[in-house]
């Protein structure tokens, strides 16, 4: 189902014209309302009048996460506090948290894009949606919430955690859709088995999973254990929150709602714009945002964009699942490693579970990588040689994918801490020493 055919199926030229017009207005707004941007534009020698079409976007300066931190909390806001109706903030695990704000119109726009996203997964008023993303400063819960109400679904605003309650309501209310992080979805699947819940009582048919990188292998595993179709949703609070892009039923990339968020792929090193199909850093310009309209915001997510025809009828560009966030990338002995690569390898082997932990350390000035892997009960062998053989296979498979030797440590099922929100996949001890 297409929620807003006018914008989602617009001709590419017509869309470019619309983006150009919106960009022009946005640049005017930030030039006059955000001192930071006025200075930046003046330094680059650009005046609002120089921006006429969407092609002019590449002349404009980038915005980075550091800019948000430097202007903490409200320095990049383009409206006075009186017009802000809501704040969200990042968890701030690395330094100061980043604060984002929304006007009433921003909330309406966000509601609209989430309604479009949910419609891609076929969510309608006939659905009961269990929102197990955290509610609060994190954008996940409330972001999905408003869009879900907009499409008329019955919302269970349960928030994250409290697994027993999640399962009970899932069973008693007959939830048909669940929205949460993929790692929590995998955990719920395990819990259903452990609690011996009658699978016939679980009516889930679709999952709206996002907020952390995950792999195709993880998708297969979640689909199998929960018996639903798993959809990937993408977003980041700096741009809006969940609903920047979403997969349609054909599942070959996430359609970006380009009438609101103009995407670009750039070379992370040079900042040069790359053509469609090339791998690079994803950059967004939120042209319709009022409270916090960020110009060419560098997401640090690495992906590719595709404009080829999609059978769903939408003309919106599609982004591939992110290879990883450049922040998540580990450099181990000079080799770039993404946790998602490790996940792919592990889930390709049926013996292991989608729970793993990468421990990076430094011994004698040499980086070490230890991958902790849980061994599935039914594959546990009581012969050392078979477990050693399993360990050897994982190690060989990782070495050929990563180009790096990792120590594999087999651990007991359930011993790696389960996350109710975004999973913690990496412990890097190098900086602590």
């Amino acid at each position: 189902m297409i929620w807003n055919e006018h914008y989602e199926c617009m001709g590419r030229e017509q869309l470019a014209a619309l983006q150009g017009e919106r960009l022009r207005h946005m640049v005017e707004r930030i030039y006059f309302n955000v001192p930071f941007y006025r200075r930046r534009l003046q330094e680059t020698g650009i005046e609002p009048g120089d921006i006429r079409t969407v092609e002019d976007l590449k002349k404009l300066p980038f915005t980075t996460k550091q800019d948000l931190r430097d202007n903490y909390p409200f320095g990049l806001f383009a409206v006075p506090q009186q017009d802000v109706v809501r704040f969200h903030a990042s968890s701030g695990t690395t330094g100061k948290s980043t604060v984002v704000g929304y006007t009433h119109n921003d909330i309406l726009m966000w509601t609209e894009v989430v309604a479009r996203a949910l419609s891609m997964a076929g969510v309608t008023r006939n659905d009961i949606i269990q929102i197990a993303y955290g509610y609060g400063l994190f954008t996940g819960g409330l972001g999905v919430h408003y869009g879900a109400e907009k499409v008329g679904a019955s919302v269970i605003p349960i928030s994250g955690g409290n697994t027993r309650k999640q399962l009970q309501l899932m069973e008693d209310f007959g939830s048909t859709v669940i929205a949460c992080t993929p790692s929590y979805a995998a955990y719920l699947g395990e819990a259903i088995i452990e609690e011996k819940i009658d699978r016939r009582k679980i009516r889930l048919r679709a999952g709206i999973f996002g907020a952390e990188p995950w792999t195709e292998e993880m998708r297969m595993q979640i689909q199998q254990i929960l018996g639903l179709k798993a959809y990937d949703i993408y977003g980041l609070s700096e741009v809006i929150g969940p609903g920047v892009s979403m997969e349609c039923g054909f599942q070959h990339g996430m359609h970006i709602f380009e009438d609101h968020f103009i995407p670009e792929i750039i070379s992370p090193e040079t900042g040069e714009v790359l053509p469609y199909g090339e791998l690079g850093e994803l950059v967004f310009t939120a042209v319709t945002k009022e409270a916090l309209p960020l110009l060419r915001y560098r997401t640090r997510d690495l992906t590719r964009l595709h404009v080829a025809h999609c059978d769903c009828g939408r003309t919106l560009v599609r982004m591939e699942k992110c290879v990883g966030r450049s922040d998540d990338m580990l450099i181990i002995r000079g080799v770039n490693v993404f946790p998602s690569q490790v996940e792919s390898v592990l889930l390709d082997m049926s013996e292991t579970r989608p729970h793993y932990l990468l421990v990076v350390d430094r011994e004698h000035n040499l980086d070490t990588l230890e991958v902790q892997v849980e061994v599935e009960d039914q594959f546990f062998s009581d012969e050392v040689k078979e477990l050693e053989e399993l360990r050897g296979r994982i190690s060989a498979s990782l070495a050929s994918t990563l180009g790096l030797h990792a120590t594999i440590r087999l651990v007991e099922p359930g011993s790696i801490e389960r996350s109710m929100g975004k999973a913690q996949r990496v412990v890097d001890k190098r900086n602590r020493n």
Partner: protein
Amino acid sequence: MIIRQLSVFLENRTGRLTELTGILEEHDINISSFSIADTTDFGILRMIVGKPELAERVLREKGFSVKITDVLCMIVPHKPGGLHRALQILSDNGIAVDYMYAFATGDGLANVVIRTDSLPKTIEVLQLHKMELMQAGDIYQI
């Protein structure tokens, strides 16, 4: 004749084995015999207990990875050459031993728990040579 042995995957973590023995005590389960195979990271505890099904269930409920493996228990004379004779029979018949461990009951006999690549064949050749195998019911009651 076939004995149900419990195998448990254990991480090398202080106190993990103690947790396990605590659970067995709580459920009044006695251990007849056991051995631990250890590597750098993990160990495999193999044990024969009084109530294998109950032990399997309660350990699993507590989050242990448990597996029931079939093994045999040979009864050999507790004197030089007792074990050798039994092993000679097995190797003469091309049977490979995966692992074994032993315990004595103080009656001039030694008991050897053994897992081979083929239990039916092992039973067959040992019986042919009049070697005694312990009954499952007997070992659970030790």
